[in-house]
């Protein structure tokens, strides 16, 4: 089976007077419907690996493929288009646009992609927010919502274009344990019931234990 996303011999080095290696010689394949947790101590390269898998960053060596397509020769714009259509990101901070309400925030990726009509975009945004328990909050601005609610809006936004891959960087870092568990339950559901590949970077070993697979990083290497 073709991996949804695969890193082969990926190394990322930051150039400079003293080059810093973020990740080294990573081989990792994430399959459709798989829920993977990346764990490791601070500075082990978890987020760096996630950004490489999400085509936000380019490896210094090695390659990343998405659905078997080699991404190395792609232009910055092509990578942006691929992210828009195929990848959803969730970060520790919700990064919602403060001037837009929940529905408008969720609609942004769909409007950028331009596949749906405005009415269909609004309906899908409402459906996603409803599925995440935010049906009553679609018109609220981010500042009018709790941390957990904002993070769920961010998840809805990441799912807006129906991505095959969902990448989350410490998505529960700012949440209480109950909200964190809810978010992880959602991720597990996305993988098992919707067939998406979900990769989550987390410090929380208990939550990581609920994933299908754990990848542990130390000093930029998988151990």
């Amino acid at each position, binding site marked *: 089976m073709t991996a949804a996303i695969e890193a082969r011999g990926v190394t990322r080095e930051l150039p400079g007077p003293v080059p810093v290696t973020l990740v080294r010689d990573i081989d990792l394949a994430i399959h459709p419907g798989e829920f993977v947790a990346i764990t490791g101590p601070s500075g082990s390269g978890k987020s760096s690996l996630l950004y490489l898998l999400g085509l*936000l*960053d380019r490896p210094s060596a090695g390659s990343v493929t998405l659905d078997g397509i080699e991404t190395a020769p792609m232009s910055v714009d092509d990578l942006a*288009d691929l992210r828009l259509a195929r990848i959803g*990101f969730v970060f520790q901070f919700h990064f919602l646009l403060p001037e837009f309400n929940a529905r408008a925030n969720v609609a942004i*990726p769909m409007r950028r992609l331009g596949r749906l009509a405005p009415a269909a975009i609004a309906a899908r945004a409402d459906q996603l927010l409803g599925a995440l328990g935010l049906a009553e909050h679609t018109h609220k601005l981010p500042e009018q919502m709790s941390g957990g609610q904002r993070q769920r809006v961010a998840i809805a936004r990441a799912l807006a274009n129906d991505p095959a891959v969902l990448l989350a960087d410490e998505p529960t870092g700012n949440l209480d344990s109950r909200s964190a568990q809810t978010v992880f339950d959602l991720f597990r559901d996305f993988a098992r019931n919707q067939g998406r590949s979900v990769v989550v970077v987390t410090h929380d070993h208990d939550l990581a234990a609920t994933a299908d697979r754990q990848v542990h990083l130390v000093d930029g290497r998988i151990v």
Partner: protein
Amino acid sequence: MALPLGLSIAARHLLHRRRQTLTSLLGVSLGVAFFIGIASMMQGFQRDFVNRIIDAAPHVTVKDEFRTPPPQPVAIAFPDAVVELRGIKPRDEVRGLRGARAMIDDLEAMPGLAVAPTLSGQILLRFGSKDISANVTGIVPEKERRVTKLEKDLIAGSLEGLYTAANGIIIGEGIAIKAGIGMDDMISVVSPAGVVLRMKVVGIFRSGITLMDNFDTYALMKKAQILQNRPNVINRIRIRLADVEQAADMARTIEARYGYRTESWQEQSSNILGIFVIQNGIMYSTVGAILIVACFGIFNVISTVVYEKTRDIGILKSMGFRDADIRRIFVYEGLIVGIVGMVIGWALGYAIVEGLGAIRFNMEGFVRAQGFVLYRTPKHYVISGLMAVTASTFAAWLPARRASRLNPVDIVRGAA
């Protein structure tokens, strides 16, 4: 209808920072409004002046002068020799334009030209205890009325009065006021040739051009020739063209043909037209400075927005927004400020022009007027609008470019 995404984000950014946005808008609006007001006032004055000159003065004047001294015979005979002549004096063209009658016949045969011969010179008008120095122009009334609008400018008397009175003279309103001269008054006229004539005022004109009204007088050609002691001399040929724009070309053609210095109305008024160029320069510099200050405001606002929205830029790029999409958002912000500022500026500018138009006062400078002479044209609105929108967009471009170059990884790392 929903706005395009980039435009909608840009509009939200600006609405979120109302005070700074308003300051930028005000800068652009004032720049546009002042441009419209000042341009209307200055071009109004300039066009009025030019129209008066075109109406009142001949379009082309042939003078009994040479632009450059004619070459000396020795220089013609020995073109390759090094020749130095000392003590050469300009030829005194006592006889005025040589072959003037033939020239006039030639010129009158050309289509679109009205031609009038004149003799110009200096005189001293004496009325009671008042002595006033003036120019006298000897004219042939039936030809003069085809070349200048002297007849229309007469506020008293008529051109025919020059024939009916023994020694008739028409004077400018400025001279009449200065010396307290009225119609039918007898004045003494003294020329540099020493000829003294008692002349009767048969007309007073008001051209609206101060210089002409204060210094010009007209008499019959014969009387002027007697005054100047230059019988049968014509020293100016005045020409009016059907197409005033052809004046410079026509002047060059005539000068090339006859050799005499021939000046178009533009050349004759070059001093004042030169001042207009300086005035326009000052106007564009002033308005440009206002717009530059406004642009700094826009630059400042958008730079601040870019700085504040760095995290948003990061997430938009991670979502799949291209560099160009990000750049477009911030350029839109400049464009919105420019367009809204332009529209407000247009309204303000219109109000300024109408306000200036309502002011009444007596002004006497190059021309005489009872208030500001305003030139209302859509061109001022188009130019000021283009300047505002271009400047605003350019001011937004620099921070927009910076925003588009931000690396999303650096942003999400820094914020996380």
